[in-house]
Each structure stands twice: as structure tokens, then as C-alpha cells.
């Protein structure tokens, strides 16, 4: 269990506290926290380990109405200035699905497109956690684009297969009249 420092309302560093103790300290979503291994201070709501502190009032990062503009005192050197919008849609679930599902339709070459989508989708959260909202948004758009490209090509592939099957079923009657061809198809 990691122990955290946090920045109190007076701008002074306090710590260390276990996540449970932080609740008693009145840590809020936008309180800056730090623990060993972190490169910089982060807002408590960005820490996965501290989600439970806000779980009763926690809404997903995609909801637009939360995220007040946070402006910290510049005298506190590490403060992030300016506001950062809610995290853009990551597209992780969709891109993983669109990568695995084409295997079912024997169209493995399509999966390469899904992998591109996954790479972009993974970047969304990284950039967002670093505070680079624009880059995060850019990755989200690219992930969406590649997920959709992969999806439509997969749908097109399935449609082709369906047409092929229908043609086959329609033709099989006439083909079976010729000796030899039926055997060839079943070989």
C-alpha cells in the first residue's frame, strides 16, 4: 500500500498518509497528491488508488459538467496552470473488439488496422494523465478513425462472404447437374 503526501489548503506539504487516512484528511478531487514513483504531483481524482474516495460522487471522466477550472497559486512551483477538459473517449474497448472479432471471419489481415486503433487508444489516457489535453484529443480522434475504418472493412468483408454463400447456394442446384464439379467443390 502506498502512502501519499498531499498539499493542504495552506499550500504546505503534508504526509504521509495511507489512502484511508486521506479520507479523514478531507482530501478533495483537485487536491494534489504524490507518492513514491510518481514523476509529478497529480490531482487525487486522477489516481486509480484513490478513486474510492470519490466513488459515491464520482462520475466518469467523460461527463462534461464536472471538472471545474482549477487554478493553483503560482508560488507553489509544481501547480498546473489553466484548466484541462474531461478525458476524451479512449476507444479502447471498441479497438480491442475490432481487432479480435475479424479473426472470427478469417480476415486476419484486417486486424492490423485494429492494432493501429489500439495504439492510438492507449495514447489517449497517457497524454491525458500528462496533462496534454490537445494531444489526448488528437489520439482519440485517430483511434476513432481507425476503429471505424477497421469496422467498415470488416462489415464489407462479411457482406462479401454472405454474397458468396448466397451465390453458392443458388448455383449449387445447377452445378450438381454436372458430374465432377460437385466432387471438386467438396474435395
Amino acid at each position, binding site marked *: 500500500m502506498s502512502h501519499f503526501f498531499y498539499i493542504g489548503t495552506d499550500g504546505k506539504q503534508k504526509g504521509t498518509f495511507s489512502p484511508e487516512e486521506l479520507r479523514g484528511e478531507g482530501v478533495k478531487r483537485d487536491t494534489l497528491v504524490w507518492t513514491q514513483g510518481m514523476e509529478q504531483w497529480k490531482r487525487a481524482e486522477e489516481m*486509480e488508488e484513490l478513486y474510492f474516495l470519490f466513488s459515491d460522487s464520482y462520475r466518469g471522466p467523460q461527463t462534461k459538467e464536472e471538472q471545474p477550472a482549477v487554478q493553483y497559486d503560482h508560488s507553489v512551483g509544481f501547480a498546473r496552470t489553466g484548466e484541462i477538459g474531461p478525458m476524451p473517449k479512449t476507444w*479502447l474497448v471498441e479497438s*480491442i473488439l475490432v481487432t*479480435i472479432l475479424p479473426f*472470427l471471419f478469417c480476415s486476419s489481415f484486417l486486424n492490423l488496422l485494429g492494432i493501429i486503433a489500439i495504439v492510438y487508444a492507449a495514447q489517449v489516457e497517457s497524454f491525458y494523465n500528462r496533462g496534454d489535453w490537445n494531444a489526448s484529443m488528437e489520439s482519440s480522434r485517430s483511434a476513432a478513425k481507425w476503429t471505424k475504418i477497421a469496422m467498415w472493412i470488416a462489415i464489407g468483408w462479411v457482406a462479401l462472404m454472405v454474397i458468396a454463400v448466397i451465390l453458392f447456394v443458388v448455383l449449387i442446384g445447377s452445378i450438381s447437374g454436372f458430374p465432377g464439379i460437385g466432387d471438386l467443390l*467438396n474435395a
Partner: protein
Amino acid sequence: MRKGVKIGIGVVVTVLLAAALYIFYTFDPEAQPLFPKCPFLLATGFECPGCGSQRAIHSLLHFDIGAALRYNAFMVLALPYIFLGIWLEYFGGKKRFSSIEKFFFGRWSAVVVLIVIFLFWIVRNLV
């Protein structure tokens, strides 16, 4: 998205899924020539990570789990994962269980999925 569009998509997907399940149940991909062949296998002679998944689904629909695992173990094990993802994304799962989504469909799980796919790809062609 408008509600009518959503329902329309739902109906189309359900009908297609039912048709696909019926076809995979009735016809054995092993014996019938009408199922598409893997272009990667045809081109290179190596199996792709998805090869055998149609036969695996046919076996699964006939409750022959052993055969399904032999045809394509990865796809059989991936099916619950796929269902989980669809439920999280499209049936409101991630609103109530965002921690599950974070764990199974986070950044690192995406990397794990890719590694598993490639390992399975290599290993199945070596064994």
C-alpha cells in the same frame, strides 16, 4: 444517436447474428466448401490466430468444448472477453462498473491482448 436508429441497428445485428448462428450450427465448416478460407493461410501456409475459429464455433454450438479448444483455443477463451467488452460498451456495463472496464480494457490490458495474440500466432505454427 436517435432512439429509432439505435433500435434499427439492434434489430439488424440481432437478425444477422441469428442467421450466422444458424449457419454455423447447421453446416460443418470442416466438410462444407462454402465457408471462407483464411487468406493468410492460403498465401503463406501458416495459420493465423483466427484459423479454426469457425470450426471452433461449430463445435461449441454442439457443446463439444474439447474439439473447440483444439481448433482454436484462443478464440474460445476470447469469447467471454468479447462478450464482456460488448456488455461494458453497449449495455451500460461501464457506467456501473467502471473499475471492471479499467482493469479489462485499460491501456495495459490492450498491450496484454496484443502480446497474447502474437504469442498464440507464433506458438500454434511451431507446435
